[in-house]
């Protein structure tokens, strides 16, 4: 079985703090990490390989330093990696990104399954997985929480608003997975050594069967026209509740506000 896992390098946003004055994230010195939700995709791929045999290939589109993310995936146990890097890819929206990732999957040849993280923690769109499926004319199942391989199809659970769907997806297919799929394994020492020495090819636009007009910012249908800070319109009314009497006063005030806003009867 051949499993492809597209991953993204993102800024480490979960450990940062907020500027108490402006209410925005302090971004200086942020480390670049593998998108935390992609680790679950890597884990799902490695678990599937353990059941069915085969190989796991990780692919990332990004600047040269995204090589670090690919090496981390290899240190977890991925067999091979490819970096898609070219100035022409810069500024891609999800449409143009998925176009390049799909072209890379085609170049890699026959594969049984493509597993993506649910979304990246920086862009937060969750669009790339379904979009890759569209480019490759494959079915897609999103929000997958478990994968059971069967003969010619995968039986999967899909986490939706009110429960879990049980679906059978013919392979090849694209899946995007959620955290329930299983905790990502840690890199092993042997994996780290392998990751250090593994040759990872870099494919540029010229190495892929792509239309240059569909790449990067120029090929992206959407344009960011403005970036601004959210207005901090909330003035927190802080009530101390250090003892019983203060607690009673604070609770009374809270109930008054909730009733005034028609949030409670």
């Amino acid at each position, binding site marked *: 079985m051949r499993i492809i896992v597209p991953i993204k390098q993102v800024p480490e946003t979960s450990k940062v703090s907020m500027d108490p004055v402006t209410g925005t994230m302090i971004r200086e010195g942020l480390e670049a990490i593998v998108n935390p939700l992609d680790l679950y995709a890597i884990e799902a791929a490695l678990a599937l390989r353990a059941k069915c045999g085969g190989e796991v290939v990780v692919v990332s589109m990004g600047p040269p330093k995204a090589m670090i993310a690919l090496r981390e995936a290899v240190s977890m146990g991925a067999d091979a990696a490819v970096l898609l890097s070219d100035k022409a890819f810069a500024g891609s929206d999800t449409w143009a990104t998925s176009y390049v990732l799909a072209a890379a999957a085609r170049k890699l040849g026959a594969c049984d399954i493509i597993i993506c993280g649910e979304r990246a923690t920086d862009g937060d*769109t969750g669009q790339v997985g379904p979009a890759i499926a569209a480019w490759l004319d494959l079915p897609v199942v999103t929000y997958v929480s478990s994968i059971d391989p069967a003969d010619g199809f995968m039986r999967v659970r899909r986490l939706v*608003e009110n*429960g879990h769907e049980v679906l059978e997806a013919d392979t090849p297919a694209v899946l995007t997975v959620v955290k329930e799929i299983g905790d990502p394994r840690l890199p092993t020492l042997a994996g780290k050594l392998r990751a250090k020495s593994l040759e990872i090819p870099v494919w540029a636009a010229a190495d892929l069967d792509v239309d240059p007009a569909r790449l990067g910012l120029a090929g992206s249908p959407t344009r960011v026209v403005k*970036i601004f800070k959210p207005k901090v*319109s909330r003035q927190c009314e802080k009530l101390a509740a250090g003892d019983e009497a203060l*607690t009673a006063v604070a609770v009374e005030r809270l109930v008054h506000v909730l009733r005034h806003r028609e949030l409670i009867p």
Partner: protein
Amino acid sequence: MTASVTHKGVWILAEQADGLVLRVSHELLTRGRALADARGTELTAVLIGPHMAEDQLQDIIARGADAVLAVEATELEHFLIEPYAACLLDLIARRRPEIILAGATTTGRTLMPFVAVKANAGLTADCTQLEIDPATGNLLQTRPAIGGNILATIQTPNHRPQMATVRPHSGPAAVAVAGRVGTIDRIAPPAASLASRVRRVDFIPQTDRCALTDAQAVVAVGRGIKKAANIPLAQSLADILGAALGASRDVVDRGWLSYSHQVGLSGKTVSPRLYIALGISGSIQHLAGMQTAQTIVAINTDPDAQIFQVADIGIVGSLFTVLPALIEAIRQSARLQPAPTVSPPQEGLPAAGGL
């Protein structure tokens, strides 16, 4: 498909479950109506599903649509990517809308990116604000990015349709107006459109009383709840408010509640009318998932906890003493004025209060 005068009209993608149109569709009708009026064009609701009762479709008209296109087949009862995409793409190719909005639901966030690629259209995810640029007539799509720390406004200048998913609860639901008229077209899709390489074989409903993303109110617990045995205390507050139970990543990682309760960057994004954070410090990761709630209440022992930065009202104290008092006070309040637990959303409330 490139922008041209041949693309006309605003569409919303209505969703149904068990033959009933979902509330998120009513929110889309509010958004869609405003955009259609600004463009001087018609608002059409597209509903892909099983055969729908007439009153359900009439209700969509009453809530602001000029036309309803119901693509109906028993195979369309539940969302499956290929048939839903084939039906929507067929309508887009024949009727060429200028704008398509869908809910940022599990269905919308799967269908829209798939269709946008096939339709050569631009798509913006999880918008909290939509308006028409008076100069160009383009759709201005504003969404939170980087964990809600910035807002980005995005345009699709040269491609049509312009597609966007809209965060549930980020705006008011349209109210039905008696006597509104519109057209209803029921469309039987060709058999070829119904082929699917994915089959739905079973469904396991969530045992919890209330689904997080659909909830009007959320009571969420953080590490301050101290142990799993204390969860029922938070649950009792949730029960009297008719609220869903949410959790920080800490609580889920410790196994005190399941992942389906997790709110935040690696969990669910919610925008309820009321969010009560109990013993949650307010990491960026958590704030990203809830800061667009309309009213945020925080209870925390640490006066410097980050959660207070996004809260409207905060109580600095132990949730173990505050909560019993609060539950009793809400019960008292309800006894004085018996009424529904959480009143329906009001029109004219600001969308996404935190932004």
